[in-house]
């Protein structure tokens, strides 16, 4: 009898231990959310068209582990990006920083736009000088008025 009671108690206890709310997949949701935000901005070096957040490459998993560690240490986003840039170069950033070597990359499209505008304006000016506005003769005016009246 005593054995049965003990067994029942054990079963009850184990039941309460098992029936828990489902744990979230990640240990710490706040860390995981920040990890995704940061990793979306970083390139996976193995599959170069994938972000660090989306890649399933081994290295991406390791790097996510490192970034997770840095987040837990309370590093800022900039410090975490600097950590990766110091090892893998600016290539890991999807948004390259503005500096002397990337100046052309950032300013190039605008320079091209300005050049295009300048060419367009010069072309239009030259053309307006060449094409004389057609004058209407008196007869043409009368014909036009007659047609408009109808």
């Amino acid at each position: 009898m005593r054995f049965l009671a003990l067994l029942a108690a054990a079963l009850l206890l184990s039941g309460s231990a098992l029936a828990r709310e489902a744990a979230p997949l990640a240990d710490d949701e706040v860390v995981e959310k920040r990890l995704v935000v940061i990793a979306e901005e970083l390139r996976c070096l193995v599959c170069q068209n994938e972000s660090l957040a989306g890649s399933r490459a081994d290295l991406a998993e390791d790097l996510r582990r490192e970034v997770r560690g840095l987040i837990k240490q309370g590093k800022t986003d900039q410090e975490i990006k600097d950590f990766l840039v110091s090892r893998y170069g600016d290539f890991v950033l999807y948004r390259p920083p503005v500096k002397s070597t990337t100046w052309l990359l950032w300013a190039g499209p605008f320079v091209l736009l300005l050049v295009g505008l300048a060419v367009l304006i010069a072309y239009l000016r030259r053309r307006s000088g060449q094409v004389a506005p057609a004058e209407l003769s008196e007869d043409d005016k009368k014909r036009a008025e007659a047609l408009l009246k109808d």
Partner: protein
Amino acid sequence: MNRFLLPLGLFIVLLGFLAVGLNRDPREVPSPLVGKPAPAFEVAQLGDPAKTFSPKDMLGKVWLFNVWASWCVSCRQEHPVLVDYAKSHGITVVGLDYKDQRMDGLRWLAQFGDPYLLSAFDLDGRVGINYGVYGVPETYLIDKAGIIQYKHIGPITPEAMVQKILPKMKELEK
């Protein structure tokens, strides 16, 4: 005739850009570590877990730090070159067995030969991350002061060895 010169000129410039751009290998990402001190670490050796290895043990020597793994297919292509040149030219090569199992690494060396002075054992890949390793094999040329002078990405071919690595090593030995 004159009106065709400008478009033709632009076309040739574009062709030049494409020729350079398309002949570059996007897998070769220049390392920001070249010219900087080799990152410090201390990990167990592959051959003897009781002993550790740290890059500062190599100060005063010009050496190659070669990242390899038994699971790495292109390392098989590179390995005979390392074995050959380590023996014939007496170059110092330290290995880093990257994210490998100890038994697999040892078996691999027993099977294909061991060109390394020793191999450090990087189980979790942290040393690799500190060196900016993103694809095995990769090789770093480190000078007497412990500065990384050159990084070779991908398997070392005999041509790369003769034309790039050996001349640089000879230069640094002086």
